[in-house]
């Protein structure tokens, strides 16, 4: 039996390389100065989906909601082995919190159609909320397994998944379709494949084709689109209208989360901890610092 997977991916600022200039006076981040990268845990999620395809057959589609340039991560998904890619983009989506984002994603997934699995990274390194995956599952009315470490078994319409919990693991059986959010070290993401990189480097979204056709007629854009579809270089593109969404539930309007206050935190010691001068002690310290995003 083969399985269809949808993978939710996100382009994020490279927070590992924040320098002095990137932080604004008010403590917010100047995103324009940060390189945009593929959220690592989403790459892991894609790998999990691709492994299911390798083992059972099927298809993998990557989906992202984001600005036009988020097409970069979709091309990278194609480089790794995704069969299809979808960009969900509209100016009206700007400023979305997790509620509005999961609304848009769930509607897009309904439109994409059939699936057995939805994979997503545990969380994105910019917001660190870990909410979009679970909220999407809720809106689709399907079960969810978060913090997945390993897919132990897939049999018919059921999957057995190992989930990390505090102090240990849980083994869960889920009926398909299921949404799974995965941990960063669940599997090691495969590299970009040279032949796919060369094949898909020119894959484009509708927004990019419109830019390419600048000044030309709509007819020409249509022509371009067909040409790109026939060469398998078209990245599916969906806007608010395409998805017939409720404007009040999108973007800032649909986002009840309001930033109350941003504080620029100056790191200063206020307590101390004793670290054993052993390999284990230092290893634990490094893990802690990485977890807190102090480095790594």
């Amino acid at each position, binding site marked *: 039996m083969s399985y269809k997977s949808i993978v939710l991916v996100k382009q994020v600022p*490279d927070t*590992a390389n924040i320098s002095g200039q990137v932080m604004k006076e008010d403590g917010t981040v100047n995103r324009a100065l940060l390189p945009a*990268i593929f959220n690592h845990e989403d790459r892991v999620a894609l790998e999990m989906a691709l492994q299911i395809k390798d083992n059972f057959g099927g298809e993998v589609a990557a989906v992202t909601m984001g600005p036009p340039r988020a097409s970069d991560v979709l091309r990278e998904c194609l480089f790794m082995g995704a069969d299809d890619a979808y960009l969900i983009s509209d100016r009206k989506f700007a400023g979305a919190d997790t509620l509005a984002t999961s609304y848009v994603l769930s509607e897009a997934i309904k439109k994409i159609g059939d699936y057995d699995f939805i994979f997503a990274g545990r969380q994105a390194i910019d917001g660190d909320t870990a909410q979009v995956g679970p909220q999407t599952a809720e809106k689709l009315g399907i079960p969810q397994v978060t913090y997945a470490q390993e897919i132990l078994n897939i049999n018919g319409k059921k999957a057995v998944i190992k989930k990390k919990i505090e102090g240990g693991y849980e083994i869960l059986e889920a009926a398909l379709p299921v949404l799974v959010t995965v941990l960063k070290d669940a599997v090691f993401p*495969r*590299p*970009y*494949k*040279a*032949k*796919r*990189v*060369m*094949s898909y*480097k020119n894959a484009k979204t509708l927004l990019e084709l419109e830019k390419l056709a600048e000044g030309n007629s709509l007819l020409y854009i249509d022509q371009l689109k067909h040409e790109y579809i026939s*060469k*398998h270089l078209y990245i599916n593109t969906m806007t608010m209208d395409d998805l017939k969404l409720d404007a009040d539930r999108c973007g800032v309007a649909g986002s009840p989360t309001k930033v109350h206050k941003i504080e620029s935190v100056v790191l200063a010691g206020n307590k101390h901890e004793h670290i054993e001068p052993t390999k284990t002690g230092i290893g634990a310290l490094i893990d802690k610092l990485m977890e807190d995003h102090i480095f790594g």
Partner: protein
Amino acid sequence: MPNFFTDNSDLLFQFNRLDLKEIVQLTEEDFHQAEKFTYAPINYEDAIENYKKILEVVGDIASNFIAPRAASVDEEGASFHEGKVKYAKGTKESLDLLSKAELMGMILPREYGGLNFPTTIYMMAVELISRADASLMNIFGLQDIAKTISQFANEQLKEEFLPSFSSGKYTGAMALTEPDAGSDLQAVKLSAYQDENGKWFLRGVKRFITNGNGEVLLVLARTEAGTKDARGLSMFACYGDGTVKVRRIEHKLGIHGSPTCELQFNDTPAFLVGERRFGLLKYVIYLMNRARVGIGAQSLGISQAAYEEALNYAKAREQFGKPISQLPVVSNMLVDMRVTLEANRSLFYQTSLWLDRKEKYEELFERLKAEKKSLAEVNEKVKEAGKVTAFLTPLTKYVLSESANKIAYDALQIHGGTGYMKEFKVERLARDARITNIYEGTSQMQIVAAAGGAINDVLSEYFDVWDKKEYKGSIAQLLSHLHEIRQIYFECLKYLKDKKDKSFQEIAAKDIVEIYGYLYVGYLLLQEANSDNRKIFTARRYILDALAKSLKNQETIKSELYSDVIHADTILQ
């Protein structure tokens, strides 16, 4: 995330500067493969875009996956238990990843799963891999073995071996050296014989075989019993199956990740590659030339890594109240390393380009010959490229491998006592560098190979063309220094010719080859300085230094320094 391709401004400079039009044209012909393969380029710009994208992938893997494993690969090394060779964990992981990324058949034809890249681009990949882990290059760089099969074997053998090379399922080894046949390969004894059905078998011993545990071996063997020279040797491909016994692996100073095997062939079934008796004369020469350029790339990668280590350490280490990089003596060493590195890179990619040109024109020649078309024009190109590569290949191997040692040596020196300790990467680089001027022909053998070209002034036409160009300001001054070096070259040459002393000439060949090399690289840097202001510094230091060294070489020759060698027996008593 760091990327060894995009973080290296000088490599990018060379990549952007390379004029690959001719090579891409020859490699892709009319871009007709685009109809069959979605990843084949549709035009020149598309080809360049492909190369760039793939080098970015290699640079990413090299810096983020391979480099972090290099120290543990060095510590663990390849091992040998009960007749089986085992790669270090990191070596195996890196090879698996490179295979998954479809990078193990970069220079093979697309029909056999390869990427059909020019050698020049492949060499950039080899430089990137070597910078991350020099020992991994010894396996990654063995793609030349598959390339040799692709070039000379019949269709059946190509089908048999090449797709699995491309996928990374097979790695190769070139089994040439024997206990009594190292630099002198004509002395190879391993015998090949046929049974009554005409099937070939190999019997004998090979030594110092890099990756001798590989799945496919290219073996130089004596097919003409009773012969003693190169004309009795042929080339074979065989599987590293149960009949090939790995007797031991060597414990080496450096490149620990690369297993160096002693092999015993016990009636191993083998396939003849190409024609009988051309084993050494044609196929090994082809393979060896490529391998020598490959070692150039390895040397360059090690040099780059050592320079980076030294620079970062010098910026971080404070003594006398400031970073040691600000001490004039240290900063002078760093400038020296950087200029050498850039000069070497410039030489290296020109050599790669010439090798590409030579091989592509040879292929074109064979195609035209088969189609019974006019050959005169292509024949000229083949001859010219042959003449130039015959000089540049050994020169490059010599200069870059010696430099890698010097740069790693200086990098360790800048670290002071710390650099001598295992905790720092630089001691590994110094050990890894040490093999580069030994294997694939020692530096002394490279001088012998390059001497003919240097003595016959094979590059004079190119120098003349470059002389006629316009150079601005201080660059024109540098040109006049090159003219001085050229004068020194002529005078040394005349002195040696007049002297008619063969052993003196043999020793002084090193001086002549060096001077002639300085000239070529000097002119290359002059062109670069003309188009990029920063490079004026590189050209200035290189050419002034070259002039000083040329004067020294001249003095050595004219003062008859070497004439005491005939009394060596007495001196060495």
